């Protein structure tokens, strides 16, 4: 039996208030963070200038030089009370994305190594990576870049000791039961298991940041030939992905 984590409400400098739902990156704490942020946003408090969610927390940007922390804290505590946020419904307006990607081969050279680290044969690893509907746990590190979870326990693989010097934009990299889809070329200790042509940040596009926390993502296995065909006609950065509204 695990000890229940009581949500923490803390000030972050004079820049805002953070509500934290766990001390480990669990699926329940992440669901709570996304749902709670959505619930507070829906209240439209004037002192909240913007909000965001991280893996386990919801952040509300408030100028604490103009609004007393204790007052904001008590208001947030009132919203927190009386609900199990880890079981809450996620906000409306989320999307399901189906994103084509190549797994293994020269375009994703660490697929076999990652499967072995997870103790799976390549077919089982591929079934996990394409059969699991993942949630955008948080967006960060680079603009629009999603951390996706949560894969099964087998995928609790550590980061490799050394860094891969430059894993390309659109890469799917795996570690600690998560997949990150790179917004730009990045040195990383996570393993390069897949490659897409999906652009997470499109500064001049109609929708600069296509993904949002709470969205769901499912990867579809394609051939390297098919990926090359998508890349040749990818001016909008969509990478062949399909977006559907989630009810």
């Amino acid at each position, binding site marked *: 039996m695990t000890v229940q984590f009581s949500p923490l409400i*803390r*000030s*972050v*400098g*004079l*820049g*805002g208030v*953070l509500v*934290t739902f*766990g*001390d*480990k*990156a669990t699926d329940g704490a992440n669901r709570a963070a996304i749902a709670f942020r959505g619930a507070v946003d829906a209240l439209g408090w004037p002192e909240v*200038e*913007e*909000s*965001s*969610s*991280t*893996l*386990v*927390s919801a*952040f509300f*940007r408030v100028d*604490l*030089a*103009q609004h*007393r*922390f204790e007052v904001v804290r008590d208001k947030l505590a009132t919203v927190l009370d009386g609900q199990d946020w880890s079981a809450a419904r996620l906000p409306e307006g989320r999307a399901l994305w189906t994103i084509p990607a190549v797994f293994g081969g020269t375009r994703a050279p660490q697929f076999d190594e990652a499967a072995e680290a997870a103790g799976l044969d390549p077919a089982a690893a591929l079934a996990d990576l394409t059969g699991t509907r993942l949630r955008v746990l*948080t*967006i*960060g*590190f*680079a*603009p*629009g*870049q999603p951390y996706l979870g949560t894969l099964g326990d087998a995928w609790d693989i550590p980061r490799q000791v050394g860094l891969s010097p430059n894993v390309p934009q659109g890469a799917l990299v795996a570690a600690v039961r998560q997949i990150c889809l790179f*917004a*730009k070329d990045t040195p990383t200790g996570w393993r390069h298991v897949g490659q897409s042509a999906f652009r997470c*940040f499109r*500064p*001049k596009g109609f929708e*600069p*940041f296509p993904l*949002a*926390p709470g969205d769901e993502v499912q990867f579809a296995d394609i051939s390297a030939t098919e990926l090359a065909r998508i890349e040749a006609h990818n001016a909008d950065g969509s990478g062949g992905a399909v977006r559907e509204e989630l009810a």
Partner: protein
Amino acid sequence: MRALRVLNVGPGVAIQDLGRAGYLAKGLTRGGAADVRAVHEGAALLRQAVDFAVLEMVGTGGSFEATDDIRIALTGATMTAAVDGSAVAWNASHILPKGSILTLGPTRDGTYGYLHVGGGFDTPSVLSARATHQSTGLGALVATGDSLDVGADRSGDVGLTLPRDSRFGGGVVRIVPSMQTDDFDAEIRMRFVDTTFRRDPRANRQGVRMDSDGDGFATPKALSIVSEVIVPGDIQITGDGTPFVLLAESQTTGGYPRIGTVLPCDLPRVVQAPAGAELRFEFVSLEDAAAIEARAQSEWCKLRSLAAPLVRDPAEMQDLLSYQLIGGVVSAVHSPLDEG
């Protein structure tokens, strides 16, 4: 279109404004000018709104030709400044006549110098701002041959100056306890505020590394924390115990614990400290920090009333020693002009 033509330019020159708020959830930090106070000063000197775009310069400036009569103001780190070869005062506003050439650089104190123009720079806006966000590739550094458009100017005031403040040489910086301060033992926190740090030359718009002698400030809890939101001024302690003060262009989240957060009104002191300058941190309570910051915000809004006529600009005097400045002895070595 009114413009400044870039005849040549240093390596770290970029258009900035107050940045892009509202994209934290999308992984994009606000960015914008490193020294926000300097932006307020420029707006006060030109008697215009604070959200006009400015030119930010690190270490060196450049030379710029005016295609029209253009009002300018110079703020932030003091740089050598001349119009058609004649020195002009820093922390002041001037007219840049059509066809004249403004030459700026290198910095003599501080780190970031600013050039403001009447009407603001009217460069292309991306995601509702003109600020260059270098770490994410939004916008580009200014290059030789560029032409920087200048917006319509609704005012004509020039020849104003503001008193110089003390933020350009390091000093004491006030910090407030933050979400992870309690993860550090009392001993580490005490040693942190007792330490005199030096600003490391390794610094950019994302953050500034702080050097010190003696042990680092790492906490064992750092190994297990979950990546968490960053606000500008957060002091993160990396795995080897080194503090970094994070600035407006940092990443949105970070996996290193924060020992405290610099008050926004004191952040320009960190930003402007030159490499090697000494800095110390002093904790103030959240309640005191809120009062200090509220007072500073209101002072920044009143800068306009402090902008006074530039009565006599010693830098413009062609033959300094021929002036009887205060009727006393004029020394070429001990220059009273540098003391005001």
